[in-house]
């Protein structure tokens, strides 16, 4: 493990401490200074005993694209829940399924994790594999009607990725995304 400037380390650790303290406070359910201090103590103990690699390098949070993503995500969540529920109930049993690979463009641990989490919860897809090095995500699709439907669902993964990169990506990530779009690579 390389030694890094204290400032960098602090910048990486502070959001994690805030999150851990927040979880601690939510678990207790009430606001008090005692909860805040004990939460801080627990968070720092966790961070010192279980150090994690950084994943938030160069990440921004943009409020408007974040709201766009969340809005679509909630809608997707409902439609996918209803769709799979219908598949489970319909008398004819399930449709055909498919396993596909999609070439992603985001190149950061955090963004790829978010894409994988989001695609698992939105219509039709389940993550089978994520190749970090080549940025290829492998998905199981259910249900698919025909090959055109498969293509449509693959395109949808890229749309989810674009929304996420716009919401959380660094300036370089967004530029890379727009760059590939201008070259005419999948732009659904």
């Amino acid at each position, binding site marked *: 493990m390389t030694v890094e400037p204290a400032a960098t380390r602090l910048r990486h650790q502070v959001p994690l401490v805030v999150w851990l303290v927040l979880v601690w406070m939510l678990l207790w359910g009430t606001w008090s200074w005692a909860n805040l201090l004990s939460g801080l103590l627990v968070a720092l103990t966790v961070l010192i005993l279980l150090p994690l690699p950084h994943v938030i390098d160069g990440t921004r949070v943009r409020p408007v694209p974040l709201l766009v993503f969340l809005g679509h995500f909630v809608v997707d969540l409902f439609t996918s829940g209803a769709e799979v529920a219908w*598949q489970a109930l319909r008398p004819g049993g399930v449709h055909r399924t498919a*396993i596909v690979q999609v070439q992603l463009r985001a190149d950061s641990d955090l963004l790829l994790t978010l894409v994988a989490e989001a695609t698992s919860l939105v219509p039709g897809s389940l993550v089978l*594999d994520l190749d970090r090095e080549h940025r290829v995500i492998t998905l199981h699709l259910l249900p698919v009607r025909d090959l055109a439907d*498969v293509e449509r669902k693959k395109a949808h993964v890229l749309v989810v990725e674009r929304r996420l990169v716009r919401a959380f990506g660094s300036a370089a990530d967004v530029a890379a995304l727009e760059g590939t779009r201008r070259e005419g690579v999948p732009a659904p």
Partner: protein
Amino acid sequence: MTALADVVAFACLLAGAALCLTAGLGLVRFPDVLSRMHAGTKPQVLGVLLVMVGAAIRLDGWANAWMLLLVAAFQMLTAPVSAHLISRVAYRRRHVRRDLLLVDEFAGTGHQDRVYEGDEPGDAPPENPAVRPGG
């Protein structure tokens, strides 16, 4: 006002419970492990979320609501991870109904075991210990 809140909470709880039921039905009715994992993630997560919303409306006090928010957040974070791990193992062990697959772009990339332990389906290709998975 309270009557309206009660109706909304009632609708959320009922819809959530129904979705969890379909998730259970899906686990029984779907043909292979990968399809079952769909049932285990989507309707189930949505069902839990709706139950949480209903409970948050019905229960008094913010303390409970915060707790339910945490449950919902962790449900959404962890369900895809466990489903992914189980699916991954299922694919490797060839518990996949190939006749239902329209396309399989993952095949031939060395992600399936060729050493069997008696639990592989009938349409698995011949055993070949020389092929190492994960290559």
